[in-house]
């Protein structure tokens, strides 16, 4: 993976480390593009604080500014950096230890319980 991808993912994780920025990104994901004023109406955060965080998020490429109604700037979530970050999470979320433990347990159990055909043969022999 190119080092740039790590930088992109790093910015995503830095952004997500802050609860206010998580709330802003979540609001944009849920409701679509919004102005700082819209977001201030929806979140328990001052408009000034939201504007500061939006500027930071735009600088990191996680949201993009676009012209909105009445000459207000509207912010839109950019999903591409999130997709870059997802690949890191995917590797960390993958668990092979539990399935391999289950495989060993399964083989131990089936080895102790002979297949039914063998049971029938044994019974037949004794009869």
């Amino acid at each position: 993976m190119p080092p740039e991808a790590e930088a992109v993912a790093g910015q995503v994780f830095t952004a997500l480390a802050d609860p206010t920025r998580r709330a802003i990104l979540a609001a944009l994901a849920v409701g679509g593009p919004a102005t700082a004023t819209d977001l201030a109406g929806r979140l328990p955060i001052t408009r000034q604080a939201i504007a500061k965080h939006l500027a930071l998020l735009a600088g990191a490429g996680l949201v993009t500014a676009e012209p909105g109604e009445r000459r207000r700037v509207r912010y839109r979530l950019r999903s591409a950096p999130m997709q870059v970050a997802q690949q890191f999470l995917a590797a960390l979320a993958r668990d092979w230890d539990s399935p391999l433990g289950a495989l060993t347990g399964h083989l131990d159990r089936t080895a102790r319980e002979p297949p039914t055909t063998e049971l029938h043969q044994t019974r037949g022999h004794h009869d």
Partner: protein
Amino acid sequence: MAFPDRIERTVEIAHPPGKVWAALTTAEGLGAWFGNEAAIDLRPGGSAWMRWVEEGYTAQMRVERVEEPVVFAFTWHIFGLPEDDPRRTYVEFTLEPAGAGTRLTVTESGFAQLPDDAYRKAYDGNTDGWAKELGELAAYLDAA
């Protein structure tokens, strides 16, 4: 920090490769230790699935390598990514006799890949997506 592309595990199993092979490559085996139910068309290009009842999740797999009883491989969707995400990882099991048992290695690779267009989108400020799709829908409805 480095992004892992590949995960690898090796386990020593006290059962011969034939038994391990059956557990890995039959619906009965996969449905017993891995998923809760499974089906498999055991040939390269064949499809397979495993279902986890409690989680309500079904994994669709595509069989890639079948070299009994040494190599079994498939690709599958990356768990946790959206259904329409094209990324798939490659899972390969290799079985080596080890005494009376088996040394089983599983490698899963491809975590560090990106969808063809995601890399471009991540850098060039392209802001396509739903806005564009919805714009196209509106244009389509206007024209109708």
